[in-house]
């Protein structure tokens, strides 16, 4: 089989994709070997495919991915919000379960905090002795200026205070409050 330049040009794309039948391939290769123009066309086309096929040619504007994710976040009401909703529900269920448990016995569940504004502490040494007042909401180190109700004070372990819903004092127990 003998092929012309025009035939090579017509098939160069399929040739480079490995999609010409073997007979034609051999004939094309024979022609290309002896034809300077067709060699230039085939090699150049191969270069085009190689260069544009490089991952580096797929450039996106800076910050593209972050903006895309933000847009998804905003428009996925069924996604993150539901996920968060589920978390809140789960947390609430734990609290309810904990309260029931505490009401039943003084078990080890975290009860509802006495103050809705206070945050629970983290890493409070359970055996540390702290001061609480009967009607107060926080537990303190002995002698803390923030102990307002000086009456009905009790000294108990931090673990017991937490179990009873007391939160760490923002002043004397500051280091046990999450800094977030």
């Amino acid at each position, binding site marked *: 089989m003998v092929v012309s330049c025009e035939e090579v*040009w017509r098939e160069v*794309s399929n040739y480079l994709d490995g999609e010409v039948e073997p007979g034609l391939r051999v004939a094309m290769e024979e022609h290309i070997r002896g034809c300077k123009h067709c*060699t230039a066309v085939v090699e150049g086309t191969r*270069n085009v495919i190689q260069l*544009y096929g490089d991952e580096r*040619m*797929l450039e996106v504007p800076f910050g593209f991915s972050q903006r895309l994710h933000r847009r998804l976040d905003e428009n996925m009401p069924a996604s*993150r919000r*539901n996920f968060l909703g589920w978390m809140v529900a789960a947390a609430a269920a734990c609290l309810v379960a904990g309260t029931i448990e505490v009401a039943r016995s003084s078990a080890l569940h975290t009860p509802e905090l006495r103050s809705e504004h206070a945050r629970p502490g983290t890493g409070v040494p359970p055996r540390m002795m702290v001061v609480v007042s009967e009607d107060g909401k926080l537990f303190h180190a002995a002698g803390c200026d923030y102990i307002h109700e000086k009456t009905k004070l009790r000294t108990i372990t931090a673990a017991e205070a937490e179990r009873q819903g007391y939160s760490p004092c923002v002043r004397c127990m500051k280091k046990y409050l999450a800094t977030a």
Partner: protein
Amino acid sequence: MPERAISLEHPAEPFNEEMLVRRVLAGEHELFYELIRPYERRVYAAAFAILRNEADAEDVAQEAVLKAFKHIRQFRAESRFSTWLIQITVNEARMRRRKAHANIMEPIADRQDEEGNYTPRDFADWREIPSETLERNEVRQKLAEALAELGQIYREVFVLRDMQHLSIEETAKALGISTASVKTRLLRARLMLRDLLAPGLGGAWSMTGKLSFVKGTKPW
């Protein structure tokens, strides 16, 4: 085969797209981010190929991804997720383009008779192309400019097939054209790009330095 747990902390872990789609459908919407992660750049590139404008391409890319999420139920596992996603992107981009260009004639290049044979105009020798040349901004810029000169129908095919490495069949599906058209347009796109790039860059990129091609002349 037991399902492997997907860890968001280890996105590099190999995963099964079909399984991811099923889990997204089952309500694990967070996994949609995993699903699209490998294709984000491709979505943008497909949109840009059609719109040729960064802001529009980015907006359309976002719209397409949102649409894919909303319509994920319609995804059929007989095609790859990436092909489906690119198909949505192409449709979105074309719609945007139609709106923007409602009264503007297509460039002549877009109306060329694609059945006719394309004759290479230039036979500049262009053999050596160290891929490291792509590290140079001006080279990538030249390639991008040449691509922008192609007519729409050629650019779409070329971007999907040669830059995103879709198969002929996938390219045809994504663009809604026949495989024969993909092949014809691809041939033209590749030859036109070679014509556009070979004379200016072929010699300049030659490792051998033997080429003494002068702009405006033919080397024979």
